[in-house]
Structures are given as structure tokens and as C-alpha cells.
């Protein structure tokens, strides 16, 4: 592992085409956001397999996970995986739709170790459970907190504030 940055020179259009060819039908709705980000939709069921192959992609391996964001769209949740490729110096955003009725995703913390705390935060704040996570505790709120505050329908309960 050399971790040299930007050793592969690849234009954004070429990157989008190559990703589309490497993941036919799996990366849907591929578009380019200037200056250096490719955005794609991914089905929740195939996430783990895509993650593994993206991590080991020849030449343009997306070997680093920068951030996992979670968004509550009221009808459904969305998890956004912000990936970075050291070799190509390019960013990739995977948008994964998560159903509100069963907010469960496969963990990717075994693919990218940095996913560990981001997934814990998504559970803590948005209530998305990650199947197979090694340490699924809350991270920012206290251990017996009730509810997930960043959901749009969150109601703060008096039980959460025993000292007031």
C-alpha cells in the first residue's frame, strides 16, 4: 500500500462510464457533480457485495470511506456513503434507500473500518440498524435514551430528562 494520491489520471466522464461498466445494473442513476464527485443509487440488498468490489476495484479502488450520512425523507430514509479513491483522487457518493418500516442495512465496517462509528451514529441519531455490526451501541446519546432525535417525527420524552 503506497497511498499515493492521484496516480491515476481519469476524467469524470470516463470514471462514470467505468463504474457503470463494472457494476451493470447495480449502480443506477449515475450522475456527475462538479468538480470531482460521482453520485449513484444502490439497492440496499446488494450494498455489501458492491462495497467489497468497490474497495478492491483495480486501479480506481474506492478504498477509503469518508463519511456515512443519513437523511430522513419522511417516506423513507436514505444512507449516503461518501467514498474516496486515493489513487484517482475522486469521490463517489452511494445513495441507499432504506425503508421506514424496516430500517435495516448490512454493515460495511468489515470492508472499511472507518464505517464503525458512522454506523453507530446513524443508529443513534436516525435509528437505522446495521446487521452484523460488531459493537452496536449508541454513540453520542446516553445508553438508555428513548428515540432517535434526527428523525423528522421525533418527539422528546420527559423520560429522557430525569434531572429537570
Amino acid at each position, binding site marked *: 500500500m503506497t497511498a499515493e494520491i492521484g496516480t491515476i489520471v481519469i476524467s469524470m466522464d470516463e470514471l462514470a462510464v467505468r463504474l457503470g461498466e463494472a457494476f451493470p445494473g447495480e449502480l443506477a442513476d449515475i450522475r456527475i457533480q462538479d468538480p*470531482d464527485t460521482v453520485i449513484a443509487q444502490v439497492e440496499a440488498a446488494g450494498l455489501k457485495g458492491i462495497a467489497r468490489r468497490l474497495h478492491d476495484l483495480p486501479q480506481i479502488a474506492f478504498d477509503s470511506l469518508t463519511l456515512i*450520512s443519513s437523511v430522513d425523507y419522511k417516506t423513507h430514509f436514505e444512507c449516503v456513503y461518501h467514498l474516496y479513491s486515493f489513487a484517482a483522487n475522486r469521490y463517489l457518493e452511494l445513495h441507499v434507500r432504506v425503508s421506514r418500516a424496516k430500517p435495516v442495512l448490512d454493515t460495511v465496517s468489515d470492508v*472499511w*473500518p472507518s464505517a464503525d462509528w458512522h454506523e453507530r451514529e446513524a443508529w443513534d441519531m436516525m435509528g437505522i440498524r446495521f446487521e452484523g455490526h460488531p*459493537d452496536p451501541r449508541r454513540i*453520542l*446519546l*446516553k*445508553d438508555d435514551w428513548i428515540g432517535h432525535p434526527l428523525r423528522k417525527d421525533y418527539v422528546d420524552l420527559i423520560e429522557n430528562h430525569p434531572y429537570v
Partner: protein
Amino acid sequence: MSDPVVNVSDPVVKKAPDEAMELALRRIREADAAGKPSDLGGMALDQVVVNMGPQHPSTHGVLRLVVTLDGENVRDVIPVIGYLHRCKEKLAEKRTYYQYIPIVDRTEYVAGINCEWGYVLTVEKLAGIVPPRRAEFIRVIMAELNRIASHLIGIGTFVSDLSPLGTAVLFYMFRDREPVLDLLEEATGARMMFNYFRFGGVRFDLPPGWEQRCRDFLGRLPKLIDEYEKLLDRNAVYLQRTVGKGVVTRQDVVDYSLTGPLARAAGVPFDLRRTRPYSVYPELDFDVCTEQHGDVFDRYRVRMNELRESRKIILQCLDMLPGGPVQVGTLRPPYVITPPPGSAYTAQENPRGEYGTYIVSDGSRYPYRLKFRDPCFVNLQILPKLMRGNRIADAVAISGSMDLVLGGIDR
């Protein structure tokens, strides 16, 4: 003597669950059941779980570490965060974009201007606002001054953790941070909670005579840095405590997505001012400071060198500073902005690493969702790996060298 009467229904007395402590004890029991001997030859049950923090002088905030000790050796560390959680991301959903700027300062309060820039940059990208050139240069000057102040605190508090000698260094650095804060105060109106950046510019133009005062300080700075280096770089006690401790490899940088001095000390030249350039950084001449070994000493060296590079950047900006307005369009900033629906992620090189902001807009005056990527939050994940196998005293050196700011980690 009889037991004191305890009313168990009283919430103040009620014992809150402590899952981190339970996890530490469970790991010991599992190691013992698996028959793994401890370093001292005994069984794992010889180990002791010590609760370090949240109020501990060497954690620079309210970081709590549940440390499993085997004699003086650290076997396991479980960081517990969240003691400074102030719901910054939820607050954003109830405030207009403009109202939220002062709150960004308070996330990572040691480098407030840099955080503001990260947020403003994302909103500008969403709304398609381009600030005038003079404002860009002023932004770079302020961010780099802020970086100098932040690194001085980072190095100073870290060295003061190591030995009584360090307390002297800390006071040298606080002494020299004061003129930086004075400069920032003169230009922005505040020492730490700046509220200075606006969408499409900055709040005030530079006051008269400010440039000369800034040059005066920058003229003194190299001598001051030499003074710190004289105190530390050849100091036998300091070298013994730092060289070869807490080594971060290049593979760790990729796996754990480490950024900032932590990555650059390991030899990865990842600096967003170069790899994902924003503002006028492409026009400026500066080096990305890297070291090779990735240990505690190298992290300190990277910060030291970055003080010099920041000085270089500010001097260039002062030379190139163009005239003109500091706010786009009118004299007043756009108080109400409604970016079109969509999402954007931008990253800014904070003194501690990549400060990312992800904003989802639904076309209204309020951010629909705002998410910060705090560099310390991500970097902290590797702490257990670095500490395991070291002595408890080295553990303090390692956590100090990461320059953690809990305000950013807990948000």
C-alpha cells in the same frame, strides 16, 4: 451505623446503564474463557478496568476512556464520547442558513473560522454563489491565522501533558497565540466565536493598518518557532516520550480515513488545499508538510512545519490582496437564501483534518438536513489500536498528539 436510606425511585440516585464498562468487563471474561494469558504471565482476570475521564486533565475536554490495564500495560481502550453533545445537526433544521453561521463556530471551537468556511463553502456550492476575489484572499488569511492559533494550542497542550517542562512550552505558546487572537479580534470582532464569514464574502473589510500589524507579527513568528524547536527537538526527555510511540501506518490512513497531521505524519500527502483545491489556494505557493514514520514525534513535526507554511501563505496573500468589495453584489449580505433542492458535500482543510459538511436542501429557507464530518471524530476511531500494547503514560502522549477537540467530536 445503619445504611443511609436510598430512595431508588429518585432519578438522581437511579443508576444509569454503562454499556462501555460492561463491554470492557465482558471482553476480559471472554479473553479469560479463551485461555489467553496476560502479559504478566497470569490470566486475563488479573486485569483492571480503569475509568479515565470524562474529567481528566489530559483529555482536553470531556473524553472518557474505559481503559483495561494489565499492570502498567494497556490491553484495551473503549472511548466514550457524547458528553458535550449539543444537537448541532438538529438545531440546523430549525434555523435559516444565515442564522446557523454563529453555531458552526461552536462545533470545533479552537478552529472556528475554518469550520465556518466549511459550512459557507457548502451553501455557496448549493446556491451557486461566487464570492469576490478580495473576500477569498481575506478568507485565506483568516483561516491560516486561525490555523496558527490552533496549532499553537494543539502542540502546547500536548507537550504540557508529557512533563512539567511542557508547562513552560504551553505558556510560551499561549503568549504567542495572543497576538494572533488580537489580529483576528481586530478584523472580525471576536477572539474565538467569530461569526465572520457570509455567503458570498466576509462580514467586514480589513481595518486600517491591519495589514502592517499582521506583517509585524509574521516577521516575529520564525524566531518564536525556532525558540520552541530549541526547547523540544533535541530534548532527551521529550524524544524518549514521543519517538516511535503510537505509529500510524499508511494502511491505517486509508482504512480509517485519517486526515490532517495524522495522515501527513504517516507520509500520505493528503491536504485538501492541494488534493481538492478550493478558494485561491491553487494560486498560492506552499508545501504539504509530510513526515515518514507516523509516530507521535512526527505529528508534532508536521504541526511545527505547518506553522511556517501558514506564515508563507498569509504573506503571499497580503502581497496579492486585490481591492474591491468583500461581499458579493450589494453591501449587505443576502440574509435569506433559498438554495435549489439538492445535496452537496464539500470538505475544507481544518487544522485537524478534513472538515466536511453535507447539506440536503429542499428549496426552503432552512437546511433540510445538515451533517458534519468532524476530523477528530473520525481520527479518534484509531485510538484503541494505537494505545493497545503501550504503557498508560504513552497512552496520554498518543491521545495528546491527536489534538482532539471534543466540541467537534460530540457536536
